[in-house]
């Protein structure tokens, strides 16, 4: 008798999206060393435009190190050596000296909200002012648009001049996202953006990530695998500085190809 395999896509299969996005970031054979110690090994990955890419893996696997290579944050650490190609919009970012332009294009949100001890307004307007924008009306517009974009406008519009540090952790993190948006980046990197937040604030940030996808390319490091499953289109599993598997998120969490990925996502690692 014949055994038929039915390979139909399920309604929840994100891979069913028909339009394949353009590559925004192309990484080829990237190696990174902290002094003598190698932290990334031949990392190659294509990150698509206006998609959310999640990086998962155990502590020390290199995912945050990799994230920081995307806007050259590792340049700030002594003894870091990088080789390989890291191309964003066709330009190898390690061949260019314009780090300021790169960090304008590639914004970042950190694990803990790191607002400046100033008003909500001044926090969001800080970057544009540093870029030389002085016009009050223009700054007002940028602040409002950024806070709206970070889904926090309605909560803070009546207290823009109050200290940003008086907000709750979840609100502060969304203001951090607004501050990143204010620079009009094309890529936003998020390093465990909800690990310091309560569950409701976490869900709000996750909703925000989903809505931001329309305009930005997002790369997120997370230890929360359900979060990776909820927010991302593609997921890369890192282990010991290597990408073990990179695929549609749906595939990674339902039928991973590599046994090590399976062991990690099902919590049987170690």
């Amino acid at each position, binding site marked *: 008798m014949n055994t038929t395999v*039915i390979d139909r896509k399920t309604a929840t299969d994100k891979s069913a999206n028909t339009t394949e996005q353009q590559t925004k970031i192309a990484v080829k054979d990237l190696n990174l060393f902290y002094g003598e110690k190698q932290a990334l090994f031949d990392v190659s990955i294509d990150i698509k435009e206006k998609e959310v890419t999640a990086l998962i893996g155990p502590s020390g696997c290199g995912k945050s190190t990799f994230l920081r290579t995307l806007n050259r944050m590792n340049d700030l650490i002594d003894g870091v050596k990088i080789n390989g190609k890291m191309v964003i919009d066709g330009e190898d970012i390690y061949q260019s000296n314009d780090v300021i332009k790169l960090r304008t294009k590639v914004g970042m949100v950190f694990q803990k909200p790191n607002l400046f001890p100033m008003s909500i307004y001044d926090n969001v307007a800080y970057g544009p002012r540093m870029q030389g924008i002085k016009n009050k009306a223009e700054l007002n517009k940028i602040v409002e648009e950024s806070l709206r974009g970070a889904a926090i406008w309605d909560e803070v519009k009546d207290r823009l001049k109050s200290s940003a540090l008086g907000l709750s952790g979840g609100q502060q993190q969304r203001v951090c996202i607004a501050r990143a948006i204010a620079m009009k980046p094309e890529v936003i990197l998020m390093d465990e953006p909800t690990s310091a937040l309560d569950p409701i604030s976490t869900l709000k940030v996750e909703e925000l990530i989903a809505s931001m996808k329309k305009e930005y390319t997002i790369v997120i490091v997370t230890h929360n695998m359900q979060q990776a499953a909820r927010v991302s289109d593609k997921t890369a599993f890192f282990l010991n500085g290597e990408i073990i598997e990179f695929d549609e998120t749906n595939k990674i969490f339902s039928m991973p190809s590599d046994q090590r990925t399976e062991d990690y*996502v099902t*919590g049987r690692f170690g």
Partner: protein
Amino acid sequence: MVVRENFENSLQELQVKMEEMTQLTVESLEKSFDALKTQDVELALRVIEEDNEIDDLEEEINQLAIWLMVKEQPVARDLRKIIGAIKISSEVERIADFGVNIAKATIKIGNGDSLINKTSLEAMKEVCITMLNKALKSFFDENMALAKEVGDMDDEVDEYSDETYKQLTGHLCERQEETNQLVQLLFVNRYLERTADHITNIAESAAYLIKGRKYDLN
């Protein structure tokens, strides 16, 4: 240390309940068939009564599976295993209901000469029980070859069913006084054929667990 030891233990508990449910279902089929062969109405009534135990086990399996999904947020193979447990327990419950249906047919036939030996029903029942045990084993052991064997055995049951249908309808013309019994045996033939289909669905759940995609073994 075994990572997720509690979860592993809970999955094991789920398996034990499924094995117990399957064992009771096999007994239900065996007893209902014994009752049919010997026209033992008492035994048939007992089969009907004992079906509650199987229904309760299905409920327990579902409750445990739902709680594990809430508590452990399973993904990949773990999730497929739990989904499989829910689907399989529903199939096994349905198969046990066929045991009850056979018992009811026994009661309807009542006393008289049994015509069962003139059919292939007993052989069908034997194949069904072997299939059921194999299907569950293919799920627990994640054995794809065994799941495919179950699909092949379903074809065997279908052949027996066609043969039995011809035998019984042939007798209907010759022994009109036995119409009631012959009609009931035609029903039993149908119950066993459906039993094999439900067992094949179990093998498909096993294939889904193993390969992560839908297989049509029917």
